[in-house]
């Protein structure tokens, strides 16, 4: 499916001030249209890798190309357009507490300057797809944990991004909801979105036989076309 590379890392290191390396000598490639799982124990560097990709953190050294652009040397004014092409499900959701669910989901569209009518239509569609059409007018803090997580997923998907980075997008969801959300992400992938999902959930890796990149202590310890390799551990 993939030929052109959308994300390329060459010997990327990331060291937070006063810490050991969170990412060490990471080299990998994600092709356009791919669906990749990122796994590894707590603190392995999964979120850090995703943060580097959407320029929330700078790499300490190494080369990191996103959409063919070297983001190690990216100018501040080139960051917003890049981020607008990426949908992110944050591990801690990062919802705006004083905006309704619908307003939260609308932000990526408003940022792009879409007309209010189009925004409303798209938001309604995506909220229905995550089963939150009845919560559109509620505030995030009055939602259950799983509902908040689905709002985060909806916000990431609403703009039909070229690249979707989902950090533990089902950690607060029951098995049925998990399958629903993962099916949504698969559907986006089928429409052409490149997907990277960071997760601990082995059942996901087993159910969706996709390429799995495993990190440990910041290093890529395996990169296989499916879950086979880890099944033994």
């Amino acid at each position, binding site marked *: 499916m993939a030929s052109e590379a959308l994300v390329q890392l060459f010997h990327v290191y990331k060291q937070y001030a006063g810490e050991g390396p969170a990412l060490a000598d990471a080299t990998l490639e994600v092709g356009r249209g791919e669906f990749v799982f990122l796994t590894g124990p707590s603190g392995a560097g999964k979120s850090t890798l995703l943060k580097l990709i*959407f320029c929330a953190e700078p790499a300490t050294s190494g080369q990191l190309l996103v959409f063919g652009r070297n983001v190690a040397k990216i100018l501040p004014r080139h960051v917003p357009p890049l981020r*607008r092409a990426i949908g992110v499900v944050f591990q801690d959701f990062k*919802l705006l507490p*004083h905006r309704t669910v619908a307003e939260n989901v609308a*932000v990526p569209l408003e*940022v792009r300057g879409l007309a209010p009518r189009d925004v409303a239509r798209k938001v309604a569609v995506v909220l229905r797809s995550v089963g939150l059409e009845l919560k559109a007018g509620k505030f995030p803090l009055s939602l259950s944990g799983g509902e908040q997580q689905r709002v985060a997923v909806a916000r990431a998907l609403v703009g039909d991004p070229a690249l979707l980075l989902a950090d533990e997008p089902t950690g607060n969801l029951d098995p049925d909801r998990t399958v629903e959300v993962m099916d949504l992400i698969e559907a986006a992938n089928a429409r052409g979105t490149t997907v990277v999902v960071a997760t601990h959930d082995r059942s996901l890796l087993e159910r969706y036989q996709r390429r799995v990149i495993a990190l440990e202590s910041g290093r890529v310890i395996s990169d296989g076309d499916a879950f086979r390799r880890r099944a033994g551990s």
Partner: protein
Amino acid sequence: MVLRPLSFVRRALEAMARGPFMTAVAVGTLFVALFTTGLFAAVLGGAERLLAAWAGDVQISVYLRPDADLPAAARAAAQLAGGREVQAVPPAEALRRLRASLGPEAAVLDGVSADVLPASVEVRAPGISLAQARALAARLQAVPGAADVDFGNAWLERVEVLLRRLRWAGLALFGVLALATAVLVSNTLRLGVYARRDEIEIMKLVGATDAWVEAPFLVEGVLQGLLGGALAVAALLGLHALLAPRLAAAVGVAAPLARAEVVPPALVLALVGGGAALGLAASALAVGRFLRKP
């Protein structure tokens, strides 16, 4: 990306409605600060005019040459003084007054004839400023037969010096107050932005440009400034309506306390415009602080 200026105003209004507490605090701070500054300016100006008016309860004496025609001079003076109270003072009256003013030394006048004193015309001009008094005195030089024009100069000069010093002290204090106002208001708006730094961060993470994030804050700052300034003006006008009649009665002069004198259009403009500028500058500084972070 399409920039929609109107959407910024909409977003600013939404943000204000969303955070009524912060909005109230910001507008309240702007109001209190601008009101105090405006009150200070109004009182400063008013006091200066009042003092001038009160000190300038001016009596101008036009001393005539011995050969002058007193009634004719009085008529000319009345014309030159434009309807003010004019009194002809013949030598006998002048002597009486001099005697009264000398007090314990009046004995020197015993046996003096009134004829040695010049006749004069007195013009009373209550409530005019020193400058006006001077101008009027200059005009009165043209009274036929006028030898010398005198307006309670020693006293007036002294008051003038006093007023000048007061004005400087007042202006210096006003400067400090205006500066303090600016600092306090910008601190408050800065805290308001600080309380919303997560929001700023999240919007940037989903692809907002700095300008897109910043614009509503600036609009908000301007709106809050306008609102605070308008409230300050309203409060000043209210206070004026309440106090001016009593004050005028107590002081005995009304003209310098007229609304257009105490709260002149320039002050209204300064408060509303200054509020808006302050709100804008403070917001810009505050948001900049959080935007320019990595």
